[in-house]
Structures are given as structure tokens and as C-alpha cells.
């Protein structure tokens, strides 16, 4: 198929960006979206233009690097997938596709479609861990039985890949789904209880400092999240937060 691409180009974080049109031809429906981008970039290199910078690495939906806003949707039109798992069979010959970076005050553009997500890093550093030394002098793993149900639920929360689609999708640029997932993973496990109060307070505080917006329960994040992280995690975080504030 032949396509028209409208792509955000921006030289660096200080430059003003703009949309630029490109044409690609002979795109196979079996290609992944990023393979289509490779075709475009090969074409640009060959004609002496600068290729489009975009983040990607594993290309199998797990590293969370890829982050394109395609036709107004984070990770594009398919559900439950990352940009790298999106396939061209979702498009048809003659389509015009708009490709933009994540847009959020807490995710400034570095170049073209690449954004800076280190705000997520700092939120994790504020409390996204259990303070146990890595010396190996811990108790036997089976000394802490955990119900299958709790373990499975913790696992569901822990599958967040930190891509930021939830933020990019939210009209308030809220990071509640991302933070809720991490808080939930630990809140659901006995190992996480000791530091539960500090954890939720510190992570939420850092989230606010980074300039993420408030949650107004529109639920768009859950729909665009490639890993199916549910809104229940936000509710759980709110409960944890409330508990923590009462405890002081």
C-alpha cells in the first residue's frame, strides 16, 4: 500500500517543531509500524535527508521504549499493543497517518518523536522499592506464603512497562495509572506492607512535583494502556493514600 505520513519534526528540545509530510510506497500489510518507519528512514538516508528519530528497542512490546502518538491515539488504533506491535494491516492503501510524540509537560521532546521520560524514573526513586538488602541473607522464599489470588493481582499491576501512554492519552496528563500500578504491586504483597505509608506519600509527592496533572476519572488511560493496567489500581492507590494521610 501507499501512504502519506504527517510526522512531527523537531531538531532538539529548544527548537520549534512542525509537521512534515512524507510519502512511502509498497508497504506490506505484514510489516510492523516501526518497520514501515524503517522503510521511510532508509529512504531519507538515501536521499541525504535526516531520518526521523523515534524511541524503540525490544520491538516486542515489553521494554516500553516505543512511544508514538498515531492518528490521535497513543500506540495507534489497535488495542492492547505497543507501537512496535502495531501492524500495517490496521491501515489501508491511500491512508494519511499522523505521527506525533507523547505530549505532556512532564515529557519534554528531545528530538522529533523522542521524549524525555525521566520524570517516571524520579517517581520510582521516591519509593518504588522494598528496602531489603541484596545480600541474599533473606528468609527462604516459601517462608512467606502468598495467596495465588494476591500474587496474580500483584503480577497484573507489575506488568506495567512504563511507556507513558497513559499520560499521553490523558487530557490532564495525569500519571495516576502508572503510579497506581507500582503502588498496587507492593500494596498487594506482604513484603510491601512495612513501608506502605511512606511509599505512597513519597511517590505521590514526587508525581506532583514533576508536573503531572490530576486525575478526573475519564478512564482514557485504561483504554490506551498496552498492558491492560486497570483503573482499579488508581482506586487502590487512593485508598492507600487516604490510609497514609490518616496515619500521618
Amino acid at each position, binding site marked *: 500500500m501507499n501512504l502519506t505520513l504527517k510526522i512531527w519534526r523537531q531538531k532538539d528540545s529548544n527548537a520549534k517543531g512542525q509537521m512534515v509530510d512524507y510519502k512511502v510506497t509498497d508497504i506490506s500489510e505484514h510489516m510492523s509500524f*516501526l518497520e514501515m518507519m524503517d522503510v521511510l528512514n532508509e529512504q531519507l538516508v*538515501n536521499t541525504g535527508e535526516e*531520518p526521523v*528519530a523515534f524511541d524503540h528497542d525490544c520491538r*516486542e512490546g515489553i521494554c516500553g521504549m516505543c512511544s508514538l502518538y498515531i492518528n490521535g491515539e497513543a500506540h495507534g488504533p489497535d488495542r492492547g499493543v505497543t507501537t512496535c506491535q502495531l501492524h500495517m494491516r490496521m491501515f489501508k492503501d491511500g491512508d494519511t497517518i499522523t505521527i506525533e510524540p507523547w505530549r505532556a509537560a512532564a515529557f519534554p521532546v528531545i528530538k522529533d518523536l523522542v521524549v524525555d521520560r525521566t520524570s517516571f524514573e524520579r517517581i520510582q526513586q521516591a519509593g518504588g*522499592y522494598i528496602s531489603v538488602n541484596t545480600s541474599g541473607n533473606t528468609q527462604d522464599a516459601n517462608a512467606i506464603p502468598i495467596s495465588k489470588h494476591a*500474587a496474580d493481582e500483584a503480577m497484573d499491576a507489575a506488568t506495567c512497562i512504563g511507556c507513558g501512554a497513559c499520560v499521553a492519552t490523558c487530557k490532564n496528563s495525569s500519571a495516576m495509572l502508572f503510579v497506581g500500578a507500582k503502588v498496587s504491586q507492593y500494596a498487594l504483597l506482604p513484603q510491601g506492607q512495612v513501608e506502605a505509608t511512606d511509599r505512597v506519600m513519597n511517590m505521590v509527592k514526587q508525581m506532583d512535583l514533576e508536573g503531572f496533572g490530576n486525575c478526573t476519572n475519564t478512564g482514557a488511560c485504561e483504554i490506551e494502556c498496552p498492558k491492560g493496567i486497570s483503573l482499579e489500581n488508581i482506586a487502590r492507590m487512593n485508598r492507600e493514600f487516604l490510609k497514609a494521610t490518616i496515619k500521618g
Partner: protein
Amino acid sequence: MALDSKVPKGPIKDKWTDYKNKINLVNPANKRHIDVIVVGTGLAGGSAAATLAELGYNVKAFAYQDSPRRAHSIAAQGGINAAKNYQGDGDSTYRLFYDTVKGGDYRSREANVYRLAEVSANIIDQCVAQGVPFARDYGGLLDNRSFGGVLVSRTFYAKGQTGQQLLLGAYSAMNRQIARGKIEMFNRHEMLDVVVVDGKARGIIARNLITGEIERHSAHAVVIASGGYGNVYFLSTNAMGSNATAAWKIHKKGAYFANPCFTQIHPTCIPRSGDYQSKLTLMSESLRNDGRIWVPKNMEDVMAIREGRKKPTDLSEDERDYYLERRYPAFGNLVPRDVASRAAKERCDAGYGVNATGEAVYLDFASAIERYGKEQAKIHNIDNPTEAKIYELGKGIVEAKYGNLFQMYEKIVDEDPYKTPMMIYPATHYTMGGVWVDYNLMTTIPGCYCIGEANFSDHGANRLGASALMQGLADGYFVLPYTIGDYLADDIRTGKIPTNSKEFEEAEKAVTDRINFFINNNGTKSVDHFHKRLGKVMWDKVGMARNEQGLKEAMAEIKQIREEFWKDVKVPGNANEMNPELEKAGRVADFLELGELFAKDALMREESCGGHFREESVEESGEQKGEAKRNDKDFAFVAAWEYKGEPADAVLHKEELEFKDIELKQRSYK
């Protein structure tokens, strides 16, 4: 230089304990004055960085991604081994040790493998304490699954995302140290050289991938944990950015490179579909717990399937050839990877491949769905369940175990693997070879360590499933933090290493010159053009089956591609900005050297062992007819190559392997 593996004396089961009791320690107050650089934040680097920081060293960690959590360890699916014997099926440290040495086709160092097995149980304790949500049974205890090449169930897992969960565990430990200021994290930074001062590794040159700035970083020791070099094949299950640069750069500065030809071609990956393909996707080995591999028995059915006249589900049981079960009744679908890959290639070469390219076999879950369905019906007291009910119940179990893998498959291939068997074919996956290290995990450059997939490691000529995660975490959490202390004990009075020495200056200049060369070269062909050509030579001539003539041709062809690359590569953009093409150019330049050494190593090793299969070395008769033939008399050694300029001129050093605790035997999985 003679290779000294520094394996401690004494009985194998006491070596590690005795060693730990005797090494030099650095007192906590002094650790504050010692800096360590860790390149890479995967399971190996992440766990090492966190532990070293926790011990009190000042750690600087580097990754080319925008977060430590995105290292390619994140993609590991199936699980991690540990000799916990929770299933009571006869597992033990010795058995894990034995299975790993045998699985590696007797080409690994016994003492290292024993230590790995010894600390394995600790890893699971550690990870659970960190909040890693491993799968559990209904009693609330940890669950296990089986992997290839073994007869016990010792693999711990978190759905099909074990690597993700383990890495997030190590990442959380890192975050705790970053918050304390004990780790300084350099994301989006690429190490481009190591700096050796007075014979010791004392720092690195790195490029800030956002600004293009070249930076000098000094330390008292440098740890390389940069992952494997599978992308030398262009197509592999590795990430797009996975590269050999850090490992290759230290090789060029004096670290020997061991067994480059020991590479794992994994049997169960999604087949390639076209020239545009940028990577291959693994379908975890754990699927072979429940999936059965087959091709049609009759050529007419193969043709009918290829032409779309028949579907795989149309074939009855006796029209199918479950060739692994047929050839290897004892291990069946759970033979080790090298064996399963060659068997798939054998069937496809004979014309039985089931897709348009003729390079695919089936991985079928129908029997598993039925078996689980019936079991569930019993558990839930459903009498006379309908077929639909059985399917529904069985599908539920398979989904719970492998749901994310099935979803991945469906998104790529656009077929529902619950209904029709998956199509799979072998692909490059893991590199057992890598930087040579001694028992302390130190390379032949004093003060330069190498851990995780980047070293030549504990897996010999073939790695068993679920052992790489185990090795990465063992190296980082439990081994390196001890062994590095022994070395650093001499550095307590050294003080900060200055970065204005001539060694730093020269190293920086070499890096800058090379970058400027690329930017100013104005060639006519893209980096990918050369990378793809290299990959094709590697796959065709240094792939699943190798022979003398092909390997000689490969060496010449790779050299030729390399020369063209330096003449004609085109890198757009500038040096002082984010420039992905420039990053790729540097990596491919290194692959183009490594590839030739790889072929040279394969040519030298005139035996078949593990993932290295020489067509000239096959069992000619008897029960093992057609299987790989090892030659212990002449080749029971680690091949460690010393850099001498051109890869073809590399000098071979042998570390003879001694087997005192395991008898050298032919591997049989029949």
C-alpha cells in the same frame, strides 16, 4: 600471557565457601573512597550496581536506553532456574550443576558452574524479598515449570514475563541506591572505549546520546555487563540496540574473547516473513512444556497446506510426524535447544516446512488444551463435559500460563494459536561466547570485569533454558560483589583517578576521530545495508550447520564487507546531537570485526559440540547416527582469542578444561 583461571583448590563443593573466607575485604569506611563503573543495567549490571552501592562503593552505571528498566533482560519470558527442590522431584545443587555442564556439552568450567548452582537458591529468596511476583500455586507456595534438557521441574516464573519482573526487582534495588546518591545513573549514554592506565582499567569514554557530548569517567574498576552479540546476525531475538561494542572495545584493549562461535539458535521463534523484517520474536521454550512439535508425514499434505488447500487441523494424528518424540523418546519435545533446532532444520531441509518459505514447523497446543480441560472438569466435578466445555476449561489454563505469548503471536502473525497450531522456526537468540573471565569474573585486563551474557560464562557450547537469568543475577548479586573486593582492597589509598591523564586524552581522541570519520565519510550506502549483508553471510555460512569451505568463504566475505563499509558508509546528521544512525554505525563497525573472528573460531573448532555443528563431525553409525560428534581429545578447551589488529590475525590461547566431578560422556537425549 598464560591463561590462569584462578580456580581455588579443594573439593568442588567447598571451593566457593573457602574462597569467600580467605579473600581480602575492604572495610566499609574505605569503600566510600572507591568508585566502580558498571556498563549495562540488565539483570547482571543492574544487580551488580545495586549490590556494590549497597556495600558502600560509589557506583556510576550506564545504559543506552532511557531507563535501566529497559535493558533487554526485560524481554526474557520463560523463567529462571534454581535448585530449590520445592517439587521434591530429586533436584539438588549437584543435579543443577550436572545438567548445566551436560547441557553445555562439556565445554564450560566446572568450578564456575558449581558455584552458579550453589547460589541459585539464594536468588529466589532475594527476589521474593524484593517483591517479585512469581507464580504461585493454590496453597500460596511458589510454582515451577520444566525447561528443556532436564528431568526435574526447577524453573520459577512470572507468567511469560519472568525477565521483566526480575529486572524490575533489580531496578527497584537500583532506585533505592540512586535515591541514596550511591548510584549515579547515566541513561542514554553509550560506552565507546575503556581507558587503561598503568595496565589497569581506570575508566571509560562515553557518549551522551542526547547531546553527542563525549565524556570521560574514571573509576578504580570497570564492570562490563553489556549483554550478548546475537545481532551480529542482523536478525535475532535481541533488541534493536543490543550490541557488542563495549565487549569488543575491551577486547581491543587487551581482554581475550572466548568461544565466539558458541551461539544459540533457539528452536521456537516466529518465522521470518519478508525482507523488511527488523527482528525475530521468540516464543518461549516454556511452551514446549505443553506444545508438541510436528510436521506432516506425507509430502502431499505439506503441499496441500502450503497451497492453502488443507489446514493443519485437518490432519489426523497418524498423518503427523512428531519428530522430536520420534527421535528422542526420553526427552521428547523437551530436548535441549541445539538439538531441537537442528531437528527442525533437518525436517525443513528435507522439504517438510509448512509455510510458503518452507522454513516453519508446527507447535501445537491441542492435546494440552484437551488434557487440561479434562483435568479441570474433574477438579470442578463436571460429569460428562462436552467437548466445547473441555476446550473452554483447557484454554483457560493455557491462557493463564502463556497468555501474553499467545497474544504476541496473534498480533504478529494474525492467526489465533488457540485454534490453529503456531508456526515456528529457529532464530539466533543467545551468545554463550564472550569476553574471557577467570573465576573472579575478571578479564585479562586487570580491574576490568565482565558479567552476564557478555562474558563467555557458564554455559559451555549450549545454554539450557532459564539459565541465563540465573547466571546474570548470580554474577551481579552474589559473585562479583565478593570477588571485586579482593581486587579493590589494594586501592584504598589510591584516591580519585584523574581524567586529565594522557591515557584518557588518547582514548577520547580515538573515539572523537572515529565519530568524525563517520559524519564526514559521505558514502552512498546506509549502515543497515552493511549490517544486513553481514547478517546474511553469518546465517548462511556460520549458522546452524557449518563446514570448512563455508567458514573460509565467510571470513573473506566479511572482510570484504568491512572494507566496503569503511569506504562507503553514509551517516547523516551531526556528531553533536541525538543521531541514531551514528550510534548504529559504531555498533556495526564492531560487528564486522567480531563476525570474522566468530567464523575463524568456528573454523578452528573441528568438532561438533552444543550450538556449534560442523558438518564434518557427525556420528556415522550406531544409535547416535546423525547426531553431533564431539572431540574431547583435541577440543576440550576454551578458545580465548587475543586481539592483534585484523581479526584474522587473532592469536589463540587455550584454557584446558578439566572434568573432575563429572564424567565426560556423549550427550544422549534418546
